[in-house]
């Protein structure tokens, strides 16, 4: 990329400017749409602060947090080895990649009756939803990263008769470190999405449940406050992982 670098402070100032424009736009839409559809930015901030102080809300927050942690762990533990294996076995990769890619385009919400029947209401269904959303991109990104490894590395591993575990930890993972970070980043945000979808339909706990409850009871300011919290968390975690991701990519391409 040959983009001219700007002063970092200018970029930061521009970002803040955009955020201010977004809040003003929100206020404008609020003026037009009215209090029955939307709460104002100020009112939402007050509701959010109130929520964050209430112990019941913290229980829901913790429920979402633990479901997210569990599904993300499962996504990695299942997705990474699958991606590594499919990347190493070229033919298997060629067979399964299009299948996985088309499975990924299914609107997974519609599968919720099946998930509910298999896992029951509660943590199981939420985690299943999280894994369903996150695992395919993790497999696909890992697979393509392994394919791009120079074959001589893998041949060396074969000559040295490394065990599969050694191949994975000593050769594959270090070779694909930057892509690994990308896949973790994408996997994390999609797992979050999946867990929230799961909570909206298949749970009595968590932020997704509170959101759908707010909507069905016409509690506008609560549902908007939760929406803002979710968006802020998604954006913050996404930006954090992205910074890490870019740093790793830069380090690999320009070793110090």
């Amino acid at each position, binding site marked *: *990329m*040959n*983009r*001219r670098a*700007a002063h970092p402070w*200018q*970029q930061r100032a*521009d*970002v803040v*400017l*955009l955020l201010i424009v977004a809040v003003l736009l929100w206020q404008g*839409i609020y003026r037009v*749409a009215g209090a*029955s*559809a*939307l709460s104002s930015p100020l009112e939402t901030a007050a509701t959010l602060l109130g929520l964050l102080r209430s112990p019941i809300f913290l229980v829901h927050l913790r429920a979402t947090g633990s479901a997210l942690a569990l599904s993300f762990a499962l996504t990695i533990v299942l997705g990474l080895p699958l991606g590594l294996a499919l990347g190493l076995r070229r*033919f298997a990769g*060629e*067979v*399964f990649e*299009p*299948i996985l890619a*088309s499975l*990924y*385009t*299914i*609107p997974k*919400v*519609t*599968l*919720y*009756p*099946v998930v509910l*029947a*298999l896992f029951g209401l509660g943590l199981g269904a939420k985690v299943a939803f999280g894994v369903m959303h996150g695992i395919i991109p993790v497999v696909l990104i890992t697979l393509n990263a392994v394919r791009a490894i120079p074959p001589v590395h893998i041949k060396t591993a074969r000559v040295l008769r490394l065990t599969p575990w050694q191949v994975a930890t000593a050769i594959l993972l270090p070779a694909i470190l930057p892509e690994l970070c990308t896949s973790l*980043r*994408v996997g*994390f*945000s*999609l797992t*979050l*999405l999946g867990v*929230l*979808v799961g909570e*909206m339909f298949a749970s009595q706990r968590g932020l997704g449940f509170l*959101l759908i409850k707010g*909507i069905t009871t016409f509690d506008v300011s609560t*549902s*908007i406050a*939760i*929406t803002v919290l*979710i*968006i802020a968390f*998604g*954006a913050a*975690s*996404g*930006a954090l*992982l*992205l910074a890490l991701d870019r740093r790793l990519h830069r380090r690999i391409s320009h070793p110090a």
Partner: protein
Amino acid sequence: MKAVTARAAFVLGAALALEGACRAHLVSPMTLIPPSDMAGEALALLTRPETLNSLAWTVANVAAAILASIAVGLLAAFILHRRPRLRRALDPFLASYYAVPFFVLYPIFVAILGLNRWPLILIGFVFAVPGMLIAVLDGLDGVPPIIFKLSRLYRMSRAQTIARLTLPAVAPAVFTGIKLTVAYSFIGIIAGEFILADRGLGFAIADAYNRFDNRTMYGLMLLVLALLVAANSGVHAAERRLRRRWERP
């Protein structure tokens, strides 16, 4: 054995295994019905006017969202490419866009726009447009600068440059964007219909589920799957055809 054959064999084998498991009652019919029953049900559903109405409604909304995303995404990418400062300011937002579960905005859209097709088209658009924008921006970054020098050399107008040089140069990226747009519009709109709507395929699935009508539900799911496969392969075929035409000397 070619990968295509192996893939077909795998899909067929998986369907047969599922069929066997269902017929042998390893899976309860309350959970899953055999794939052959799903297919039969899907065909039967296609003769019913209410299914056709849902189908037409969903397809029309998805098509509107796709067209809007393609148009706006393309335009925005060209504008952002010429405005580096704006682009740098937007960069962090674009990069973390899909980390944000935007479907949570759908109920707010319904509250503002009413329970009709517009909030659905909007959520499909909101889901799809960044995919298009990011893909085309990446494509524009990859256009060799010599192409723009060429346009200056021949004193081409801006419209000519875009039509004859820039667009063909970014065509592969545009197709990547269109593929993403198709997938995301379907996901956004069917999910929206599932959450809160009074018609459409997503709504029909949710409705069948609430009535414990497993057969209809699975038939509809299969229809959605078929629709997606048809849409994706349509885009792929169009891409191949255009490529062949462009690559002909």
